[in-house]
Each structure stands twice: as C-alpha cells, then as structure tokens.
C-alpha cells in the first residue's frame, strides 16, 4: 500500500503543480468527477420502528430452523440442513408457512419512478411528495440486517464500497457551466481502477484524489445520460439499464437496474442523494445470497427463502411476456460521492 500511496501523492502533486491549475478547483473545462463512497438501500427508519414495523421484525434462518426442527438430533442432513439450503438456492414463490412482516408505514425515501400515484406508493418523509416507488423497502424494512446502524447488510454492503475496487463506480459531469444551475449536463458512469484517497485514518475519503477509468474490465459498465442542475440539485434522465458491480463479501456479483436515475445535491467537494430505478428481482436475490450465504443471512435475521417470496410478491415492473409476473422491483439507494479527478487513457 505504501507504494500506491506514494504514487497517489505524486499524482496529486503533479495535478497541483503550476499555480494556475491548482486555482481552477475541481471543475475544469466544464468537467467534474465524483466517486461513490457510500451506497445502500434507502430504508426509512423511525426511532422505535412502530410506524413501519408494528408487528416487529422477521425471523431469520436460525429462528426458522429451530421452529421447523426442534428435534433435529436423529434427523438427517438431507431432512434438515440440505432441505433449507435447497429452498434457498432453488427458490420458489410458493408460501413457506412463515409469516413475513412487510413495511406497513406510509413513508419512504425514494422517487416517483412511474410518474403516477397509486395505493401502494409511499410518501416522502421530508418533502411530502406522493407516489414514491420503493417496494424493496417494503420487503426489507422489517429485517434487522438491512437497518442501520448495525445491520449486517447495512455494515458490509456499504463498507465494501470503500474497501473494494471492484465496486469503484463514479460519475463524470461534462458540459457544466455552473454547479448551481445548468440546463443540460452530460453524465457518464464509469468504474475506476484505483484505491481511494483517504485521510490518515483510512476511513474518510478525501476529495482531490485521482481515478483512472477502467477500460480493461469495466468497458461494459459505461453508461451516458443527460441531466440538469437546479439550485445545486442534479437530476438525470433515466438510463434504460445499468449494471452496478457489487462485492460485499468476496463474491464478485452485480445488481441490474432499469430506468436508473440520480438525484444529487452537488458540491465541489462531493455529492449526496439517491439513485433509484427498478432492480431485477433474480439478480437482486442472487447477489445477496451468493455473498452472504446462510451464515451471514442468519446474523441479520434474513431468511433468504422468505425474502425471495416477498420480492416476487412485491415486484412491480417489467412483467415477463410469457407469465405476466413482474420481474423487477422499485428501489432507491442512498448514495454519497466524493470529488475525484477522473483520468482518461489519453491523459496518462
């Protein structure tokens, strides 16, 4: 790591070399870059959870196993462990006999993805906007593993955004006249190749680092869309399909989103906001269980078996042309980004 740090310092020094360039700030030639440093499912939580989860939280694999097999001694691996693993890895939408507590509150973070206001839509907790589409929240909001600050998914999925380069997604805004207001900017999604520039703790990502664009492995991840900035809030047009690399516990996997869009509060040194769209249900579920396996799911009281059925039940978009069953589910993620200088190949 020392040699990488030295290289990063050299890069930073070279970028700062020459007083004129240093005074330009991060917006240069109408272009500014940001790298993701936090990304996690938007879960609206009240202090005692009574509003969203009046019936409490869901059971996980350990609790379900004890209820199913109170006398497991004398039973076989096939009748117990492998039965549950089969249900996890070859899931069906059929009921599993356990109650599943969906979010029952009216509020949720997110966006109105379909432009409509329906009976299943949420209300934005701050703006009061109606029509918020976030059925992933309805599925996971009463599972403790998805709730902050100590849920296993909340910790590990978000932590991986900083730790793993595989997840190093970033956006570049081009054609920017003014970070406060601009009728049209171009937003390009890239993956970066480099570790992040942090402070001495290694935990806080600092603005001003550099990231090379990953054209080696990440070419297929590049997406481009248009956006507009109003009062320092960037809103983009939906991107038809986006693949986000996602590796929280050592298995390189992906999330697949349709109609993917950003709404970000922009600053020169960073941005915060949400991304939203429709997540492919099978990809969403497989990403979770491939990285977590039943052990980590258990630590968050996440029954993969029960959750899959909920995701299928709550899926609200992109019906399968043959079966009519929806294949995608509305969602939103809280995102934080830190300003970074994006280095393209011709920039050395």
């Amino acid at each position, binding site marked *: 790591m020392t*040699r990488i740090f030295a290289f990063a310092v050299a890069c930073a020094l070279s970028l700062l070399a020459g007083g004129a360039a240093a005074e330009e700030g991060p917006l240069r030639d109408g272009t500014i870059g940001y790298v993701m440093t936090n990304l996690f499912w938007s879960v609206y939580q009240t202090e005692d959870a009574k509003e969203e989860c009046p019936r409490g939280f869901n059971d996980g694999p350990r609790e379900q196993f004890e209820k199913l097999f109170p006398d497991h001694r004398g039973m076989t691996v096939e009748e117990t462990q492998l039965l549950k*693993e089969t249900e996890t*890895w070859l899931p069906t939408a059929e009921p599993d006999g356990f109650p599943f507590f969906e979010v029952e509150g009216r509020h949720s973070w997110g966006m109105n993805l379909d432009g409509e206001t329906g009976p299943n839509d949420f209300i934005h907790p701050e703006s009061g906007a109606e029509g918020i589409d976030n059925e992933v929240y309805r599925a996971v909001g009463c599972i403790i593993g998805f709730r902050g600050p100590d849920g296993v998914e909340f910790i590990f999925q978000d932590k991986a955004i900083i730790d793993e380069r595989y997840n190093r997604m970033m956006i570049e805004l081009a054609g920017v006249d003014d970070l406060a207001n601009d009728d049209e900017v171009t937003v390009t999604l890239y993956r970066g190749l480099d570790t992040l520039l942090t402070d001495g703790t290694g935990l806080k990502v600092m603005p001003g680092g550099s990231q090379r664009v990953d054209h080696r492995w990440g070419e297929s991840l590049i997406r481009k869309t248009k956006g507009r900035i109003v009062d320092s809030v960037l809103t983009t047009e939906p991107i038809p399909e986006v693949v986000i690399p996602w590796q929280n516990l050592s298995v390189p996997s992906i999330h697949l989103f349709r109609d993917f869009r950003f709404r970000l509060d922009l600053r020169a040194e960073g941005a915060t906001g949400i991304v939203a769209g429709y997540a492919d249900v099978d990809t969403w579920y497989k990403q979770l269980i491939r990285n977590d*396996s039943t*052990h980590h799911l258990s630590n968050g009281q996440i029954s993969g078996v029960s959750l899959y059925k909920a995701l299928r039940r709550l899926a609200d978009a992109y019906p399968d042309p043959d079966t009519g069953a929806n294949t995608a589910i509305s969602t939103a993620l809280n995102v934080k980004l830190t300003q970074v200088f994006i280095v393209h190949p011709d920039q050395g």
Partner: protein
Amino acid sequence: MKSWCNARRAGNGALLTITWLAFAPAGHAEYSLSGPVEAWVDEPMPPGFQVFPSELEGPVFADSQGRTLYEWPLHKQRNGYSGESPGTPACYDDVLTVTAGLMSPYPAGILLPDLDNRPSCTDLWPPVLATIDARPVGRWSIVGRRDGSRQWAYRDQPLYTSSLDREPGDVFGGQNNDAGGDDPAYRVPIGPAPRVPPGFSVRSTRKGRLLTTDKNESVYAFDGDSATATACRDECTQKWRPLPAPALAHGGGDWTMLERSPGFHQWVFRGQPLYDYLLDQESWSQQGNDEPGWRNVYTQLAPSLPESFTVQPTIAGDVLADSRGMTIYVYNCGDDSQDQLSCDHPDDTQVYRLAMCGGGDWRVCLDNWPYVRAAEGAIGSSRTWRVVTIDPQTGHFADPKAPGALRVWAYRDRPVYTYAGDRNPGDVNGGGIGEWRGQRNGLRAFWLRDDFMRGGL
C-alpha cells in the same frame, strides 16, 4: 539433489525436461512434464522419502512408494476448530455419524449422509507410519498414535497420504491455494522450499507457480530485456521497479544478476531481469500484464488447457470458459463432521452436490449445472486436465461403456460445470452459489486472473 529424474538442458538453458521413468512403479505408464520446472532446496529426509515435481503444486514430498505427503493443519471454523495441532494426530479409523456444528447456522448432532458407506478419516487419509527403528531427521519427527503406532511428522504436523492419488506426483488430495477463512479444514500437500533468493517466494495459481516477492507482490519480466542488458531505464523505472540484489548476493541455478549501473545489481531469473509494478493496486494484482511486453514470471507453468477451452474476460477478470465462452465452475465441498471429509470428488458422497444443484434430482442438476462434455476423441494431455466418464444419475465415475455414461472434462480429477444462469460469454452468475459462498458445498468460477478478489482464486 536426488537423481529422481532425467534432467537435461537445451538451447540457452531455459528448457528442462523431466521424465518420470525413474520412480514410476511397475505397471504405471510413462508420464512426462515438459518445460521448466521449479527447483527446490534439498534437505535431509527419512530413508526412502523423495521429492517429486507436480503439475500444480511444484515439488512435493512423497513416501518411499511415491505417494504425495499431506498435513492437516488446525483450521479455525466458525464454532470451533478442526484439523490437527502439532504433534497430535486426530485422524483415526472411527466412522463419525453426526455433524459437529462447526459452521453456523446449523447445529451439531445431525446425522451425516450415506452412513452405510461412510469412510473413516484413515480410509481416505492413511497415516504415514514409521518403522520401529525409524529415527527423526532434520524437520522430520515421529509422533505417537493412540494405538501405539508411530507416525511421521514434518515440522511436527502428522503426515498422511491420500486415497485419491494413484501415481507419483499426483496431488489430488488437496491444494495449497485453498485454506480461505471459511474453507473446510483441508489437507494440504507439503514440499521443500523453492530455490529462490531471500526476498522472493512462490505461490500456486491456476496459471502456474507464480514468482512473487516475499510481500506477495507478483514479479514481472520485460520482453525487451536480456540476462545482460535491460531496455527499462529512466522513465520506465517510474512504473517498474528493478528488484535489487544485495551487494554480497551470488547467483546459482536459475538465478543470476545484472549490474544495471555501477553498484546496483538486479535479480535475473532464467535470463529475465525482474521487476515489480508500482501501479499494481494490491499485493496480489497482476495489472502489469496489461502493459505491452510485460508479463508475470512463473517458476513452472500449469499444464495446458484443453484445446476446446477459451479464456473469457469478465467485469471481474479473466475466467476459464468452454468453447462457447461460457464460464467454467468447480464444485467445492467439505462436510461438517469433525473429520471435515471432502465431498467434492466423484468417489465421495454425492448427497450434498445433488441437493445444491437440483434439490436431490439429478435431472435438475444436469439442467442447472451441466457437465462440460468432452468432444469425441478428446483426451486429456495432463493429470490436471483429463477426460473422465461419469454416471449422471449417481455422480460417480462410470464404466466408459455403461449406458448413459457421459465423457466429461475433469480438473484435478473432479468434473467441471457450466451454469444455466449464465446467458452470455462473460457472465459469472454462478460463482459463490452454495453453502459458504460456494466454498463448502457449492461452486466457484475458474478464475485465471483476479485483480479484485484478494487473490483468492
């Protein structure tokens, strides 16, 4: 060095051909490894013990009959330990019947599968017994077993052979690049230290025995260099750091030195000046290979891939793929008994695999995880890659003429698979499917280059 092989050098000395005639027991076919092989440091051994080169693990120790030696190191599990403490054998002939609950979330005390046929630990791992008059030598000692017999140990770890190994140099019982945090307590082959200068090491990878620094940084060579001259100077050295040799160092064997400038000596391996790459992001990174003319250095290359196979770029690195470009997967399995017996080989119980791939239905398994079929006439060119015949209903090896038997490709004697959930070349949707991210009863992709996964391969 023991005269275990017929070694000769050709051309500039880079090619060393090994022929296995000398120690191949009667009835075993001649077997050849061509290309440079890894040199090792000689050390005193018990009488009759030997060193054999292997295809993937480099040189390994073997007993007097040429059987590769393994140890079973203590391995921390989620709820306890399995394996052996130094000096304390734990592998015996008891047939264990229930799970140990070592890995959450499932509790102990559940009946293990196929109990009528379940082997004991020593059925699969015969201990390497020492005669009554055997004496310790060097790092080799003798430990007592509970029946009073004496067992050889290396660095105090009791030693075993594997029931899966058939010929000298076979290492089907275990690998050195397993032993991840949540892996089963694997048995691992042991071998002599590689003959490399201080500051270097060697690591087993799917491509071969990778030369690294002692900090696990992969080492590179440049096509424009020679043993006596380097083309990498000035600006080049801002990204490529010549690996310095101490002033008092002297070469030997495959190793020489190049004096780049007065007083600065650079290590040279088989005529190639060595560097590391300053832009490698992690210690295991191999990104320097993307620079024209630069490549990693191996003490020994892994056997060639089957001709019909391809290498497929993905968003996570290079993966091995079949002729259509579809990702190839390897099944991994270790049970939750205190013995941690393997369940990933066709000779093992198939209960775990059939549950994971098809809910116990072999037909569903064939749909979800089809074997990689071998073309008619295809044969393996190595012990690492060979064509085997499988009964798809049982998952066990089958007579080639048995009805319904399939000819499939096997890696290390275990069939490989593709995944029905992969739609296009470059998809790796099956990696990590199964218990413990595919490490204990599941499948992992066959990665050939890994820039993102901590070198786990």
